[in-house]
């Protein structure tokens, strides 16, 4: 039963991630990403990491993508028109990306079944063990990250602040 739900969620996640890339309408792209993130959250729950799942939904699906949607609607971005340029560089780069993707996929398929999570039994996605790791062993990176976010916030404020008159 759990296995079935996990597989369905995983397939949905990948499927809607693909839709996000190829869809021509920006608003629908964002919506597919929301579905994709939701599927990912379901996967996290089934991997017994409910905290990560909740944060995934609250932060990504619930906050960041709503802001994306907000901006897209405010600007009223129309459906994308496909240009007829050759785009040689992009095509060459996409070939490289395809190779990298194939290698990653191969590795993933090779490790399929031996369950990374089962081997690292000590690592749990529950709240308490995660918190005790974050606030002891990884305290410094954790605080450094929050300072980074604060710096970005201040930077955004400085950029958006209306110029004072001469």
């Amino acid at each position: 039963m759990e296995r079935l739900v996990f597989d369905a969620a995983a397939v949905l996640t990948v499927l809607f991630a693909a839709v996000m890339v190829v869809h021509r309408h920006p608003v629908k792209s964002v919506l597919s990403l929301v579905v994709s993130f939701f599927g990912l959250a379901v996967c996290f729950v089934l991997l017994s990491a409910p905290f990560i799942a909740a944060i995934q939904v609250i932060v990504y699906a619930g906050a960041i993508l709503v802001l994306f949607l907000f901006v897209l609607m405010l600007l009223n971005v129309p459906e994308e028109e496909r240009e007829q340029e050759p785009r040689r560089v992009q095509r060459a780069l996409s070939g490289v990306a395809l190779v990298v993707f194939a290698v990653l996929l191969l590795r993933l398929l090779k490790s399929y079944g031996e369950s990374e999570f089962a081997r690292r039994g000590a690592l749990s996605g529950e709240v308490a063990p995660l918190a005790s790791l974050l606030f002891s062993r990884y305290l410094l990176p954790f605080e450094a990250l929050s300072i980074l976010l604060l710096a970005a916030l201040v930077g955004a404020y400085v950029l958006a602040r209306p110029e004072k008159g001469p």
Partner: protein
Amino acid sequence: MTALDWLILALRVLVPLVALLTAAGLLSWVERRGAGMIQDRPGPNRVGPFGLLQPLADAMKFFFKEDIIPTKADAVLYVLAPAIALFSALTTFAVIPYGASLPAAGRTVPLIGADVSIGVLYIFALTSLSVYGIVLAGWSSNNKFSLMGGLRSSAQIISYELAMTTAAAGVILSTGSFRLTEVVARQEGTWLGFVPRWNVIPQLLGFVIFFITGFAETNRLPFDLPEAEAELVAGYHTEYSSSMKFAMFFMAEYINMAVASALTVTLFLGGWSLPGFHPHGVLGGILSILIFTAKTAFLLWVFVWVRWTLPRFRYDQLMRIGWKALLPLALLNLLWVAAIVKLGWI
């Protein structure tokens, strides 16, 4: 699990769900009668005793109305939007403990849909998804009033979510768990023998902020700018002029109110607990449900009371209150709670 276990689980989940749907209908009646009372007129009083069957009559009307999808609307999203709104409203109640426990068929049945370790976070996750229902309704209708309503709503909900979660963080800090059954368990008993150990007493500021942001998150007056009828016709549901789709938004709003009240009761007002009340047996279980319902019903009445008493905020006032008043005060509350927890006062 035996068939009996499954049956009990199904009842645990379904009974509050049906109760919520009934409450939505009942609340629309309370709202209209309450408005009548405050405005010194009778309100709906023709269908059934005291007009109590009015919601049923309204529902029948909704079912038989013609279902219209505007020509220029995005049909798929237009239909999906009210479904999202109702879905996120209904699923949030699953983790709220609506009573102590009930002995049944030799088992002790906990009166909660699912007692998950991330209870509070689960609720915030689903309420943060509810904004999609409103935003998509606004956008897919292809109508400028709808779009304005949708935009306002997303800005408002994101702004007030911050203060709301920060206020709730105080309760989580003093409980030491996201699990809502533990939040309630910690509020049992008394201080000095007569003061209930409810979170509202040490965290009065947090309670006030949480309840105010609850109004904003459910788009209720004085925060109902997404559907401000005086300027936006009906905001995000302008094009949902008829049929069950409008009814779904309507129900979602009332269910959201009920969930917001139930959550406030659970986090700050002791849930189903009462000083001197130790639930025991079937009677105790039923009493605990009644206590929880009574507390929630009172807060719901406050929702109605405020709606017909206060005027609507202006948009700039709304943003200023959210960012410059509620958020700093919520942070202050969090600091205060951290201090009293560290000092061991609670």
